[in-house]
């Protein structure tokens, strides 16, 4: 695919240039189902939503820097308006980050290929994508707007930022590529992965938890890109292809299951009035269809085999193992530690997904609202079903999907020869089918059939009193309680005191305090009396003359 168009709008005398190649087609394919799903789920009447979608599409289609920046900023501004409509407080933080991102990105893309340009683009796109240490706006801003917008922000907007990073790091800046570019991306990625997965395990608010999980997946994509960028600069196209396959497949899978989960969270909010896991429970009984779709999304989020999230994880782990297999000794030790940290976060993501389903959808209701929940409205369910159907080929035929990614990999690393995927879910499913047949035969032939409903045993405790129809909610673990062992073992080492995000405690917090101090100084200057001002001017004059005199004398 190689097409260019010119549009007669935009900069005077230049217009806007659009261009389609394999990379932008791939990201358009990631974006399209989410835009449709968000619109079907209830955003189709909102002009801001369509401006948001248009901005993203324009950024992906851009052939010149002006169109790219225009689309990107249109996306930022529209999403800011949408966040503002949901909640005022994160919107301010969000617009600050968006301004910082633009301030880095605009000089970055106009500079010639060099390390400075790469750092600026990585900072600008990374801040917008939610890469550590600039990720902490994401769990605040993404949950604020309605579910359809949250879904598109989490699944689509971060991908547009990553698209810009990929395009500039792999194509535009390719002549100046250095191995340490990839190492920077890997370091930022693993920090995002560990912090994101741990916070996803600890958060009790459903949408905040999903946003933390997005930080984790952005980190996984960044690690894949970093490994690929480093391998490309060091002349190892096979490893570069593997890392790129992992990153791109992760982007595809995440673009399907994360919007699905966000739309489901919106429906939970609609049905029960809350998204706090501590007030939910037993939703599978009242909302079986929503529960089934959410289960599929959670399987993807946890990266379990036979689900959509496992193939990218598989490729990424193999890429990291490959990177640890060659090179300098310090880098190899670093990649070993990276592998262990990836294992830790994979298990954390699994626990977070189990918590989402086990606390929110299984067990007994923790509030009357959760007990009275009825199945979701038809339109959001249809949107979720669309995403779920698209998850199936990614889950069961990942080899075909990586095959379809080959032109993109070839575009980014021209010498590459991508290998076929070694993970074949269909053969695993065949083995599982054989085992299920054998077990089914034994049960059918010799077993006792049928089930009987009885009160739960619950360790021999008596029946609950009549005014607690679902038992005492405090006798089952809450979302906070479920995360408590992990929090005790890990949070003290990884997060800041009090469970705060390290980026907020150690980066944004001091920055904010410095800002306040400067404001206070400026305010005191502004309020100075005429005598103080005259004294200030006189002192400055004396100091200047003294400096001049000392300079002359020396």
């Amino acid at each position, binding site marked *: 695919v190689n097409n260019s168009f010119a549009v007669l709008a935009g900069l005077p005398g230049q217009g806007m240039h659009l261009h389609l190649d394999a990379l932008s087609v791939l990201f358009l394919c990631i974006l399209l189902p989410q835009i449709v799903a968000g619109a079907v789920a209830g955003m189709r009447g909102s002009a801001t939503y369509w401006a948001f979608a248009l901005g993203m599409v324009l950024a992906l289609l851009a052939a010149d820097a002006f169109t790219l920046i225009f689309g990107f900023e249109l996306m930022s501004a529209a999403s800011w308006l949408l966040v503002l409509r949901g909640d005022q407080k994160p919107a301010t933080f969000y617009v600050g980050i968006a301004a910082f991102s633009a301030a880095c990105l605009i000089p970055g893309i106009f500079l010639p290929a060099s390390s400075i340009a790469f750092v600026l683009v990585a900072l600008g796109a990374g801040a917008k994508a939610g890469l550590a240490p600039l990720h902490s706006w994401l769990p605040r801003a993404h949950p604020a707007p309605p579910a359809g917008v949250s879904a598109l922000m989490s699944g689509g907007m971060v991908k547009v930022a990553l698209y810009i990073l990929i395009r500039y790091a792999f194509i535009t800046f390719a002549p100046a590529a250095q191995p340490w570019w990839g190492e920077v991306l890997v370091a930022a990625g693993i920090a995002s992965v560990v912090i994101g997965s741990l916070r996803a395990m600890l958060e009790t608010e459903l949408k905040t938890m999903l946003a933390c999980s997005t930080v984790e997946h952005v980190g996984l994509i960044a690690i894949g890109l970093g490994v690929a960028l480093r391998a490309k600069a060091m002349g190892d196209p096979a490893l570069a292809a593997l890392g790129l396959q992992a990153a791109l497949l992760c982007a595809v899978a995440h673009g399907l299951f994360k919007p699905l989960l966000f739309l489901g969270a919106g429906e939970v909010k609609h049905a029960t009035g809350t998204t706090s896991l501590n007030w939910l429970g*037993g939703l599978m*009984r009242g909302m079986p269809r929503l*529960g089934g779709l959410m289960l599929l999304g959670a399987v993807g989020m946890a990266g*379990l*085999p*036979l689900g959509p999230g496992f193939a990218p994880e*598989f490729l990424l*782990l*193999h890429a990291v*193992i490959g990177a*640890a297999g060659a090179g300098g*000794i310090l880098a190899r*030790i670093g990649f*070993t530690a990276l*592998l*262990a*940290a990836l*294992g*830790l976060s994979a*298990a*954390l993501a*699994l*626990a977070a997904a*189990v*918590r989402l389903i*086990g606390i929110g959808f*299984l*067990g*007994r209701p923790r509030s009357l609202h959760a007990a009275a929940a009825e199945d979701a409205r038809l339109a959001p369910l249809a949107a979720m079903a669309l995403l779920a159907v698209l998850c199936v080929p990614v889950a069961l035929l990942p080899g075909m999907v990586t095959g379809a990614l080959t032109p993109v990999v070839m575009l980014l690393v021209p010498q590459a020869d991508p290998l076929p995927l*070694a*993970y*074949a879910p269909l*053969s*695993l499913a065949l*083995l599982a089918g*054989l085992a*299920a047949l054998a077990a089914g035969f034994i049960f059918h032939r*010799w*077993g*006792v059939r*049928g*089930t*009987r*409903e*009885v*009160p*739960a*045993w*619950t*360790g021999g405790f008596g029946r609950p009193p009549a005014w607690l129809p679902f*038992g005492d909610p405090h*006798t*089952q*673990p809450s979302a906070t*309680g*479920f995360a408590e*062992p*992990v929090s*005790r*073992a890990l949070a003290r080492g990884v997060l800041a005191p009090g469970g705060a995000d390290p980026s907020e405690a150690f980066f944004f917090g001091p920055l904010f305090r410095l800002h306040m101090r400067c404001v206070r100084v400026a305010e005191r200057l502004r309020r100075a009396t005429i005598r103080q001002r005259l004294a200030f001017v006189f002192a400055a004059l004396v100091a200047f003359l003294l400096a001049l005199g000392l300079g002359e004398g020396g």
Partner: protein
Amino acid sequence: LILLDLLTRLAATLLHAVLVFALAPLLLGLVNKLRAWMLGRRGAPLTQPYRNLLRLLRKATLVPVTATQLFPLWPVAGFLSISITAMLVPSFTTGLLTAPASDFITIIGLFSLARAATMLGGLETGFGFGGAGAQREALFGVFAEAALLAVVLSFVLLAHGATVDGIANTFRAGHIGISVSLGFTLAALLAVALTETSRIPIDNPSGHLELAMVHEAMLLEYSGRSLLLLEYTAMLRLMVWMSLIGTIFLPFGMGRADAPLSWLGGLALWAGKLGLMAAALSVFEISSAKMRVFRVPEFLGVALLLGVLASVFLFVAARIGS
């Protein structure tokens, strides 16, 4: 000739599957028997696990009223994922038909799937003990998976391939030698295996105090066929882990799937390996006590450290060797 070769490998694969599935309860019976002997008791007969399973098969299956419609599905999901690994991990021969799919990372993923299914089953009824078991299992899983991946890295570096079958073939060829790294990986893998199969010192499989249970606590509400599947899955998991450790660390003399004459030696060796590991497990279990829950992350942290050190030693050795 190719067809004949394929048929022999198919026969080996079928034999492997039948033996692994049929002998898993016997292995647990052997471990229990040996442990009872060492404690000076007579112990239950070797076939006791079969009798337990048969008894469960004839019992009614009860579903608690507070459980959702997915209650009977979690044991099935756990059983299916462990039975896939049982067919992937070689026992007495290498070169099974399932060998190309036996990538170590796939196997780790399948163990995670089984763990997730068990945890969801524990949370299903919404009562305290099941939830407590699930949250402890989540904690153990975090450290166990990190340690396991670190161990896998040294195997892949030594064997230049990620399938269990390929690792066994390379290690059998014997030009690896005995190295410090392999010792470290063995220690780390044993610690992870004890966690995954929920044996002492992580968890007590014969414990009857709900407060101290981990794995058993998640099964408390299950009965009948569902409990049968869960218990059988635990037996199968022990079998898979023992076969895995035996295949990687003692591959010498394993048969080849396309040479039926070598199967006999492989079978005898497999039985010997399983007996040896069952004896070692029972000695270890009677000589140590169950840990407190929050000591387990430290125990697995040591395993993680050993796994990372094993790879670091390999890097240093490669550096000195070159």
